């Protein structure tokens, strides 16, 4: 808010670099996302999509570069200063990441409970409301180990939206789900974007899902943004890397190592 930035975006990654040991995962990434926009990040497994997504909530700290959220650089904030920033976000994790020592209802309500701003009844109502949105009110007492993969993702989604966030991050929301459940999740995401006017960033390699939810698709390749454009632009572009990925072919510039 007080930071003088050259970008006007709501979520901005500026020259972000990240490496683990000697493995360079993000190599000077620049990405600017507008308020209310739905961006989908695509790319091969292991290219750093999850790593990039986690940077926006500073779950991973960049080696260099800036992460601007609504103009505020969060790259060097302390844990306590990050709390209000993180409360603006909700995140659905790749593995759903439900707390396996807690029942579904407690999972969804934990963030509200720990924030300490709502009464028990208010939290309970909020939990029911969110579980209704994902169609899982019956599972409120169940433990995560009793749920199927699709149900876990939906509980993860309910937990992500529990605090009515402005920004939603989805890490592979439909991977590993049957096509019907996947479509239910896609619809939920589209609904949230339209009704709640959230800004969203989704990581996926499910192109059906990507075309359905994206205003803009960004392709990561070898630590860099290879392409960024609308779904129509990506369908019609002649970048070979993009075309190979979108059409799902083994032959092409992308070699599976």
């Amino acid at each position, binding site marked *: 808010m007080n930071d003088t930035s050259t970008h006007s975006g709501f979520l901005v990654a500026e020259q972000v670099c990240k490496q683990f040991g000697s493995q360079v995962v993000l190599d000077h990434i620049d990405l600017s996302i507008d308020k209310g926009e739905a961006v989908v990040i695509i790319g091969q497994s292991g290219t750093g999509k999850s790593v990039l997504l*986690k940077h926006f909530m500073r779950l991973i700290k960049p080696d260099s570069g800036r992460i601007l959220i609504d103009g505020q650089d969060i790259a060097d904030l302390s844990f306590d200063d990050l709390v209000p920033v*993180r409360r603006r*976000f909700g995140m659905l994790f790749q593995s759903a990441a439900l707390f396996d020592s807690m029942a579904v209802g407690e999972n969804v309500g934990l*963030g509200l409970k720990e*924030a300490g701003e709502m009464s028990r009844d208010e939290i309970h109502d909020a939990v029911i409301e969110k579980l209704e949105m994902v169609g899982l009110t019956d599972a409120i007492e169940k433990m995560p180990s009793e749920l199927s993969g699709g149900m876990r993702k939906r509980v993860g989604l309910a*937990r992500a939206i529990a605090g009515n966030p402005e920004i939603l991050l989805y890490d592979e929301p439909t991977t590993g789900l049957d096509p019907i459940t996947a479509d239910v999740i896609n619809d939920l995401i589209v609904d949230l974007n339209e009704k709640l006017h959230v800004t969203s960033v989704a990581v996926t390699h499910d192109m059906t899902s990507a075309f359905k939810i994206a205003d803009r698709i960004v392709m990561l390749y070898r630590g860099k943004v290879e392409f960024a454009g609308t779904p129509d632009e990506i369908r019609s572009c002649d970048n070979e890397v993009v075309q190979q990925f979108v059409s799902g072919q083994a032959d092409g510039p992308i070699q599976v190592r």
Partner: protein
Amino acid sequence: MVRPIRSLGRQGITLVNAFGGMAILLAQFVYSLRKIHRSLPLIIEQFYQLGVRSLPLILVISIFVGAVSAWQAAYQFKFIGAPLRFLGQAVGKATVIELAPVLSALVYAGRVGAGITAELGTMKVTEQIDALESLGISPVRYLVMPRIVACLIMVPLLVTFANFVAIMGGLVVSVMGVNVSSETFLFGFRDSFKLTDFLAGLTKAGVFGLLIGLVGCYEGFRTTGGAEGVGMSTTTSVVTSSVLILVFNFVFAMILFRL
């Protein structure tokens, strides 16, 4: 010739990194104590998980620790011709100063230290730690602080319990196996008992508890690489805290029991 040296150097660097990391975690733990009131239910839960549930194990090992120390003391006494009426003194001293704190701590590292690392390590590799942070919850306050506090308080309490049980174990062996009356044994124990020994044992127990909790949490948070990674960090956790317990114990001996 060069390779083993290089490997040794690499292990040295890992060790220095690990101690640095543990020191940082310790500082974060201390800092998180300012919000201890918000974690009280979690701490009470850990008192139960890490303390109460360790009682049966401590009970069993302490009986046998007391029993074997009485037996071995009697055997040594016979060998050097010392009078058996000093059995209570020997068993009492050995138990209160060394055996109860050290052996309880080692067993506790195997049960509780391993459990903490496996649990936090699994949470780490399944992104549950990230999920906590994403909800604005500090993993140090929510996970680390309750566990270290529980270890810090529970290990001294368990050692007090272990002292009592081990003396009873020693008593049973001396009455039934060595033919020393319970009056003689208990008189010897009381005669040699010093409150400062007991307190020194408890101080050690507190430090061991802190080490076990700290190493357990540190190794859990460092875990990468799925189930295999969890197994590896659990092993590292138990080995590291066991070695540290014995090293610290020797340092304590030199400080507290000057020759």
